[in-house]
């Protein structure tokens, strides 16, 4: 027993040390920054203030949070609908195909995100690949002007977040014993019922971590909206970037980031309460 506890600490040590030193400390520093005032030229003055948080209450900034939440919700939902079946089916493939698919789905994501987005621009742009295809098939009569619209941004978001969902669902569904579901079916349950009562319940942790892994970055992602949306949707991330660069206002940017962090955490907590997946305690 004694030995067991010791080995457990050995397992936890790297995580504890690394997280405290290189994550907790920098984040604490960020919180500290958010209560300070900006200096004349660069950096901060050590004068305590709550103004940075008060400023977030202005409709202009509140609105960027609403926009970010809206986009994150929509993207995560679509990612879930598309990615879950993919990961689930992948887990049911033969061992060789599993390995192949895992690489096949990741290869596109090893090239730069910017390059991939430019690829989408060429597809979506006026008289681009998609327009030519649709008009060639006589589905549409004239160019759609899809680029720099909300749907283009959503496509870009879903595309970028998809692997998080697929891989999460896959890695938890992979351990499933599919004979269980088959047994249920043999006992007279319908295909769907067998899936719902047996497989779905068992892959829920994977789905949950997939949702979290997609939702978390989607709140802060803004360069997709900038590139595919032509910068016309203002998200929290781009305000933070602007305040840090042109605005040279580190404290305000820190306050915005802190609120974003709290908001994201809150959303995930609510999500967990609603879905009743408390066994995943600790995963945010």
């Amino acid at each position: 027993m004694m030995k067991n506890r010791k080995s457990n600490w050995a397992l936890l040590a790297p995580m504890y040390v690394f997280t405290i030193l290189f994550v907790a400390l920098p984040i604490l520093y960020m919180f500290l920054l958010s209560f300070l005032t900006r200096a004349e030229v660069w950096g901060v003055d050590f004068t305590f203030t709550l103004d940075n948080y008060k400023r977030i209450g202005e409709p202009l900034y509140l609105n960027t949070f609403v926009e970010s939440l809206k986009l994150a919700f929509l993207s995560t939902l679509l990612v879930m609908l598309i990615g879950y079946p993919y990961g689930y089916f992948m887990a049911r493939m033969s061992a060789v195909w599993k390995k192949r698919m895992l690489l096949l789905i990741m290869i596109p994501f090893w090239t730069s995100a910017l390059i991939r987005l430019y690829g989408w621009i060429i597809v979506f742009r006026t008289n681009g690949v998609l327009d030519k295809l649709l008009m060639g098939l006589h589905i549409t009569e004239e160019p759609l002007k899809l680029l720099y619209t909300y749907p283009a941004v959503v496509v870009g978001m879903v595309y970028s977040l998809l692997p998080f969902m697929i891989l999460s669902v896959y890695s938890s569904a992979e351990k499933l014993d599919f004979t269980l579901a088959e047994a249920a079916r043999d006992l007279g349950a319908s295909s769907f019922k067998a899936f719902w009562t047996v497989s779905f319940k068992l892959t829920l942790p994977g789905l949950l971590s997939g949702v979290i892994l997609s939702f978390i970055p989607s709140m802060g992602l803004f360069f997709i909206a900038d590139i595919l949306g032509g910068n016309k949707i203002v998200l929290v991330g781009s305000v933070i970037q602007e305040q840090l660069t042109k605005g040279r206002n580190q404290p305000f940017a820190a306050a915005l980031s802190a609120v974003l962090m709290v908001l994201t955490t809150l959303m995930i907590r609510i999500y967990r309460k609603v879905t009743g997946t408390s066994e995943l305690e600790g995963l945010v």
Partner: protein
Amino acid sequence: MKTKKWCFVYVGVITAITYIPILVTVVYSFNESKISSVWEGFSLKWYAELFQDRDLREALINSLILAVLSCFFAVIIGTSGALGMYKKKSRLNDAVGYISMLPIMIPEIILGMVFLSVFSLMGLPFGMVTLVIAHTTFCVPYVYSMVKARLVGMDKSLEEAALDLGASGVRVFFDVTLPLIAPAIWSGVMLAFAMSFDDVVISIFVTGPRVNTLPVKIYTKLKTGVTPEINALATLMLAITILLLIGAHLIGKKKNK
């Protein structure tokens, strides 16, 4: 058990869609024009420029080293952390697990700027060391959460049985636990590698004068415009990856015979 045909069809269609922008990139890497949205004819000039660009080559190598190292550390930290927390639940563990997820929760630019200040206060020299530390912070969450999700509801009795039979803790880990969680680790590494290999913003802040990474080189052509050279690079890397995969596959087949 037979996988139904339509499962394959669904997976196939989605996979094909994810390759659309990549294929466009490949095609446009042979474009004569500097403007990415206008086709002017076939040319290999971007490949020629690519091979002349010493900085870009060095940046590519740095990026690979960085991604591999960051993934390596993320696997150690994330996997052992998830295992340790799975074995014994506590409020403190939950808190640390939560904090480890924060780096992917806030925009990179603020994280980069905070890292810059904190690393400087710690006296760390800017360069590969700070890059690896910074990248590891956002690679850990992927490995950690994947392994964590895999462990939930996993049968503890296997491990206990092995321990009861007298196997040492280390052996149990390598013979029983690791094979069980390997798919999750591998999934985490795949994501972490992609994130590290593509990071610009954090890298700009924490790198030093001697180490440049590939995405930084690509994204900072702000003043003169991004050129199709990067399409050529992406195509080349895609080709290498696929060749290596085919090679590995053939070798594996031979062994199996």
